């Protein structure tokens, strides 16, 4: 006797957010990246439609972490001191969907790069690539509030994704994104209640619902991955069940989180039983990325081209009928 498939039908869908603007929309990008729009859980195309597959942005930093292992610096060694060249390599050689420029160097405890210097770097990256841009602040609330109004103006018309807004520091960034037509990243510290609260605060500032991307914080494999995963899953279930205050695409930062782990950094001399260091580190990033895809991430931020290749292979397998 044939057994009928039990298919779930959801009442709502995730908002679609568009990153990047082409010349016809007042920008200079050669393409846009669309996130969200689905009315079903990841890969379950029999239960609904997924108009936009997850995108992969490659992360470029303005200051390399001295603790990075050789496995990570190797592919970028010719461009690692120039964010613009690095970004171009990600676009041309590794076919990144978008560039995520992280302004680590601007942090007061790092190089404390001036606003003018940061804006210059941002403009160079913008000129070097034609794919959409994500600009990720340095993490110091005070410094980011100085940086973002200037960065936002320099990128006006490009419909970038700027982040991050937090529950305690969202007003400057939200006002800036509103003024210059950018999208915003709403960051919460692995806490679904704060995630929802921040969305409400942004909506109260008249941030349009199709310009918010949720960053629920990411724990890499072995270091809190399950927390991120379950929060993403609950967020998505709430969205599909009709909670419009949770119906936003989600971004997962795999890059710096997975390369911070001991499993990615420890040399073979220290951990000979763990196998080849470079393979292990790449697998750690790819496995974390795939986990987040299953959790509902609409965009992954990643570093290593080999890890991205593995993730894309998985995506292709999961989306081929």
């Amino acid at each position: 006797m044939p057994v009928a498939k039990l298919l779930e039908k959801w009442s709502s869908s995730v908002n679609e957010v568009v990153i990047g603007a082409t010349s016809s929309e007042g920008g200079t990008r050669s393409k846009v990246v669309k996130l969200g729009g689905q009315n079903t859980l990841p890969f379950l195309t029999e239960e609904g439609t997924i108009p936009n597959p997850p995108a992969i942005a490659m992360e470029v930093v303005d200051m390399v972490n001295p603790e990075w292992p050789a496995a990570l610096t190797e592919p970028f060694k010719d461009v690692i001191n120039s964010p613009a060249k690095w970004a171009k390599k990600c676009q041309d050689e590794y076919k990144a969907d978008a560039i995520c420029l992280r302004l680590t160097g601007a942090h007061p405890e790092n190089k404390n790069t001036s606003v003018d210097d940061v804006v210059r770097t941002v403009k160079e990256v913008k000129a070097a690539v034609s794919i959409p841009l994500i600009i990720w602040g340095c993490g110091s609330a005070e410094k980011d509030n100085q940086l973002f109004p200037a960065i936002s103006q320099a990128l006006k018309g490009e419909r970038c994704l700027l982040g991050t807004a937090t529950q305690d520091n969202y007003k400057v960034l939200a006002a800036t994104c509103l003024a210059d037509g950018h999208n915003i990243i709403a960051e919460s510290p692995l806490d679904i209640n704060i995630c929802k609260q921040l969305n409400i605060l942004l909506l109260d500032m008249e941030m349009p619902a199709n310009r918010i991307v949720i960053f629920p914080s990411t724990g890499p494999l072995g270091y809190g991955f399950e927390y991120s995963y379950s929060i993403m899953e609950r967020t998505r279930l709430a969205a599909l069940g009709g909670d419009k205050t949770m119906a936003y695409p989600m971004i997962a930062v795999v890059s710096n989180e997975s390369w911070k782990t001991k499993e990615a950094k420890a040399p073979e001399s220290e951990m000979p039983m763990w196998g080849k260091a470079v393979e292990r580190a790449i697998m750690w990033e790819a496995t974390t990325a795939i986990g987040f895809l299953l959790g509902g991430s609409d965009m992954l931020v990643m570093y290593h081209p080999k890890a991205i290749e593995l993730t894309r292979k998985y995506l292709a397998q999961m989306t081929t009928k």
Partner: protein
Amino acid sequence: MLVIGERINGMFKAVRKAIQEKDKKAIQDIAKKEVECGARMLDVNVGPAAADDVAAMQWLVEAIQEVTDTPLSIDSAKPPVIEAGLKACKKKALINSTTGEQAKLETLVGLAKKYNAGLLGLCMDEKGIPDNIGARLEIGLRILACAMEAGISTDDIHLDPVVLPVKFGQAQTPMMFQTIRELKSLADPAPKTVVGLSNVSQGCLDRPMVNRITVVMAIANGLDEAIVDPMDKDLMDSMITAELLLNKFIYCDSYLTAYMKAL
């Protein structure tokens, strides 16, 4: 929780006056206000306001639909008045209401089928309101069976356990709560449960207090929908909080605002 606004009813003086004077704007203002306060369906009842209640119902429905596309609950004891309302409705409507009385039930099930409308059934019949849970459930089942026979899905049936004033029949309220619980198990998919809330506080000194505690207890017993005054903010906040406590949505500090935004 589906909030059905009760304010467009000819029993209220302002509405009666608006119907008599054909003051569209007065009705539209109430409709807009109800939606703004969280109603996602509006009950429409001509009441004793007009000599020609068929024409008045049509006028009300058309006036309301000019300012909102919120679905309507067409409320009358007379099938021709209900049909006039259904004919004018652009969205799927709710018929309010039938009882278990066979002739009435068959007529209204016929209208529900013809106009693809939901049907609200009161757990009472020509003999009155039963004084025990078993007999109320029996009527509920009768309404369900009649609707199912006509090919109406059970989740388009909204069963009302019948709310009586606590002041005049205190033993009725616990029975009402238990009936709500048991109505849900009558069919799969389960019928919706609904109450016309305000009747519970007839004659009470502090009506809002009685209303909001009753609705919270009913929600705890599985109530899906309530015909209430959405402009009673304490009532709305109590209902939202009751749903929060039942883990129906995700908490955040501004959950009251969030609930309204998520509607």
